[in-house]
């Protein structure tokens, strides 16, 4: 209980600092810390899968996205003056929330209704129907597998939106690519437009410690991603986390060396295709069960003994592919803007 409170106090403090900080670059780094603290809280609250995801997404991807966006905009927030009306809204909301939650079951109460309706059937069924040790995976991929199809679709939708906005990075455009990359995540080559970028006296790829450690780390990161992909049945992990970690490995390489090097291995057009393939793999699994005569996403159609296993394997793979490809594609979008694709509106 005390650990929870200590971490929560830290979370509050970091949140306040993020809100107050005028240096957006520092604030972006702090959002990473914020996520790590949250991940710590999730772990203590027994939500290991959520912690894993938060660490990978919040501390990893979101921070990279913020830094990329900051590289293309500006890193200083103008002094924000205090405003009364928002404070009033916040106070009212806070009052309502505290009033409303005051007769909620207490934190950690084993008698709370949510532990006695529906949930016990998941705990039993995960062992007897689905044969999966990690109940989160059982619920995520099978009992509520349709939500997860929706989740992959959300990721896909965001990818479509970002591609609509930030241009297509396929082929050609190497010249712009170079410039765009240097202007953002690869950190500037010093003499960029004044006021737009922070001073970077030295390119990251010229720092030997970074070069060597990254080269050593990346194979392990990618390997770990595959392990996480396969391990979701037995412990925390699964397609989403694996996809993020895989992408993080590639993004790390791009950050230290050159986004273009990543683009040669994993061209943006391929990433775009793979996002769609991932979604279709998930949805296709559902269509396959339909064609076999069952309900949508009823994996029992793949065989009573281990059909659930095959089904979960297929959809988790779909999630992994779609997420990894999306994250890489987002990274490209935020590290290079393609002027010939983007016609500035009048």
């Amino acid at each position, binding site marked *: 209980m005390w650990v929870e409170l200590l971490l929560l106090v830290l979370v509050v403090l970091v949140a306040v600092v993020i809100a107050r900080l005028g240096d957006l670059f520092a604030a972006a780094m702090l959002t990473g810390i914020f996520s790590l603290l949250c991940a710590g809280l999730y772990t203590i*609250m027994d939500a290991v899968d959520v912690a894993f995801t938060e660490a990978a997404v919040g501390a990893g991807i979101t921070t990279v996205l913020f830094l990329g966006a900051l590289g293309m905009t500006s890193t200083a927030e103008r002094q*924000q003056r205090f405003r009364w009306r928002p404070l009033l809204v916040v106070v009212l909301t806070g009052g309502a929330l505290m009033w409303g939650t005051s007769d909620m079951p207490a934190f950690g109460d084993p008698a709370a209704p949510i532990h006695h309706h529906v949930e016990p059937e998941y705990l039993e069924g995960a062992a007897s129907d689905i044969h999966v040790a990690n109940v989160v995976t059982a619920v995520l991929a099978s009992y509520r597998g349709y939500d997860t199809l929706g989740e992959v679709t959300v990721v896909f939708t965001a990818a479509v939106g970002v591609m609509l906005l930030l241009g297509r990075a396929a082929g050609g455009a190497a010249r712009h690519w170079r410039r765009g990359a240097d202007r953002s995540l690869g950190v500037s080559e010093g003499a960029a437009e004044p006021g737009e970028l922070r001073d970077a006296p030295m390119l990251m790829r010229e720092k030997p410690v970074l070069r060597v450690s990254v080269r050593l780390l990346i194979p392990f990161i990618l390997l770990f991603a595959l392990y996480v992909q396969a391990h979701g049945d037995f412990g925390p992990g699964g397609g989403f986390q694996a996809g993020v970690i895989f992408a993080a490995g590639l993004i790390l390489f791009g950050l230290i060396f050159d986004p273009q090097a990543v683009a040669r291995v994993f061209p943006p057009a391929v990433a775009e295709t793979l996002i769609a393939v991932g979604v279709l793999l998930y949805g296709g699994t559902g269509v396959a069960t339909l064609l076999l005569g069952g309900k949508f996403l009823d994996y029992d159609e793949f065989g009573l003994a281990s059909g659930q296993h095959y089904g979960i394997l297929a959809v988790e793979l779909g999630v992994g592919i779609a997420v990894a490809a999306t994250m890489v594609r987002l990274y490209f979008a935020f590290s290079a803007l393609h002027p010939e694709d983007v016609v500035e509106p009048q």
Partner: protein
Amino acid sequence: MSAPAMGGHWVTWMIVLVLLIGLYTLIAHDNLIKKIMGLNIFQSAVVLLYVSMGTVTGGTPPVLLEPTAGVTEPVLYSNPVPHVLMLTAIVVGVAITALALAIVVRIQGAYGTIEEDEIGAIEMRHDEAQSRA
């Protein structure tokens, strides 16, 4: 681990505080990227709230344990359902962040600023110039 000693709702109310900090940042700040950071904090608080609902005092993470010889007492697991829901919510959050940042990058290109009040002023001048023309 003495849950009742803390009055039962302190965790929830600390989380509400986090939510409010995010909400204030979101609506009071002019800087669009700062707004998105506020949105992130706001959404994280909701995730924290859900996850805290699923916690059972003395429970273990919902990964089924092999029965151990000699132990007959059932294992107490924390509730996996909020975890599943919040995995989805975190993903929704990062999707929204990515899209919002992409829009902000384009706003910078179109207006040369990402401060909401400055953009408003630019549009106002634009409108006035048009109505005079």
